[in-house]
């Protein structure tokens, strides 16, 4: 009997440790690397706080926040009015925190001799009106249009800034992740795609958009037009452990992490 009692007390003690300072983060795969690195460094400094982190996408994260299953919803798009309404109905007081910025680079295959493009030309390509690189002064080669999936936060931003309400071409390849777009552009001579600046590397070539090359400087001084804020939504003004974590993200150290994982820190 005594033995059972001590096991019982042991279980209580262990669960007590597990539930002390638990932060759950869910959402956008774009924001994921920031949250992951920040959580790692933060937990090293504050071992009593445990952060559990999941991807799943902006919609999943916001839904989890609305259902009370997450403390932070990562999102690469602003919350929609419908989601705001749902949150209010569930008694969740949504607070929007911009934690970093992301620039979308327009990438082509390195073999392509084009090195600049305009917003109008982008719209023409993605709506299917421009089909061949020769129409942009390149060599005669069909354009392989690569887009992100309909419901991704990245597509949402692209749709708003580039398509301006027009429909994406039925012939566009819709791929599931930044990484998939990057490797497909790298493998396909005629391809064009858009990816987070953090995903640029030597396998693809970034184009100047309206004469501006995508970089941390041009996104921050707002001369590069294809950029978006990244969000961490919380229920109410973050306080306690959650407040500490959010403060950490906004700190010098947190913003250095933002830059390390390839995004653009807040000034």
């Amino acid at each position: 009997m005594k033995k059972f009692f001590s096991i019982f007390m042991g279980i209580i003690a262990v669960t007590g440790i597990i539930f002390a300072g638990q932060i759950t983060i869910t959402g956008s795969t774009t924001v994921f690397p920031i949250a992951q690195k920040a959580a790692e460094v933060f937990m090293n400094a504050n071992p009593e706080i445990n952060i559990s982190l999941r991807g799943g996408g902006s919609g999943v994260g916001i839904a989890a926040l609305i259902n009370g299953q997450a403390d932070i919803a990562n999102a690469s798009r602003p919350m929609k009015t419908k989601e705001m309404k749902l949150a209010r109905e569930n008694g969740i007081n949504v607070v929007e925190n911009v934690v970093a910025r992301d620039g979308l680079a327009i990438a082509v295959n390195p073999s392509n001799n084009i090195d600049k493009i305009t917003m109008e030309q982008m719209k023409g390509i993605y709506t299917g009106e421009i089909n061949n690189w020769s129409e942009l002064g390149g060599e005669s080669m069909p354009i392989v249009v690569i887009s992100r999936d309909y419901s991704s936060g990245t597509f949402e931003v692209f749709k708003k800034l580039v398509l301006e309400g027009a429909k994406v071409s039925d012939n566009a390849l819709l791929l599931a992740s930044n990484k998939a777009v990057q490797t497909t552009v790298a493998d396909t001579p005629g391809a064009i795609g858009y990816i987070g600046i953090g995903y640029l590397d030597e396998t693809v070539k970034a184009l100047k958009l309206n004469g501006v090359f995508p970089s941390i400087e041009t996104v921050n001084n707002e001369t590069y037009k294809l950029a978006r804020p990244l969000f961490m939504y919380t229920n109410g003004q973050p306080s306690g452990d959650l407040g500490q974590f959010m403060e950490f993200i906004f700190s010098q150290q947190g913003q250095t992490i933002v830059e390390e994982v390839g995004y653009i820190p807040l000034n």
Partner: protein
Amino acid sequence: MKERLFKYINFTAAFLSVVFLFGIIFSIFSEGLPVFAEIGVFEFLFGTSWHPVHYPPEMGILPLIVSSLVVTAGALIISLPLGVGSAIYLSEIARPGVREALKPFIELLAGIPSVIYGLFGMAFLAPFIRKLFDIPTGLNALTASIVLGIMVTPIISSIAEDALSSVPKSLREASLALGANRSETIFRVVLPAAKSGVIAGVILGFGRAIGETMVVLMVAGGSPGMIKSILRPVRPMTAAIASEMGETIMGSLHYRALFGIAMVLFIITFASNLITQFILEKGKRQ
């Protein structure tokens, strides 16, 4: 006492799988049915434009259904001769030693996770197909069909082989005794006798191919338009569900439309499984 406990544990296990099945059916249909009411059965199933996040949304899933069927048909065209051919070889032609050596390889092929098939298709097959046909991209219906075809072959092969092996030896001997040669015996006697098993294998392969998600997500390209050529990128139903569900708003029309697609897919695979069961039962009774 032990005996009864054991019985109850097993009963619970069996009962739970029924509960799970009905739970899944219920949740898919309760989320998906509203979309038929809101968009209209005909417009949803036969609309040719899939632009769910465009304003106003266009939610016709015919291009997705056709993409799934085309890719699956292509997979069967490839896997049918390979699967049945290898089954005939293993069951009728190969010496026992060769059969014992080959069978594990085919079974191993069946056990490879689909993401690995997808990687193979993306990294090797797609660039190869692109250069072979001199087309802009190798992520298309043909590449998806080939990868799925390889994936489904072991399923068809092992079920067809079971069916062929269970044909009584006396039938073969009778055929040979009547003066038929070996190939005549195989194609006119053994294969017809094992017909139901072979067909069941093919239908099971169909169900596996049409439900496969990872491979088509990785190699089919994902273009939402109506298919014009097998060398063009396509967006099968499974790829649309898997890639759009993640970031969509829960409870939105788009969310429900994805459940609507899941319903269509579920009904197709459920029907193909039922037909398989039916054919196998009928074959057993004969």
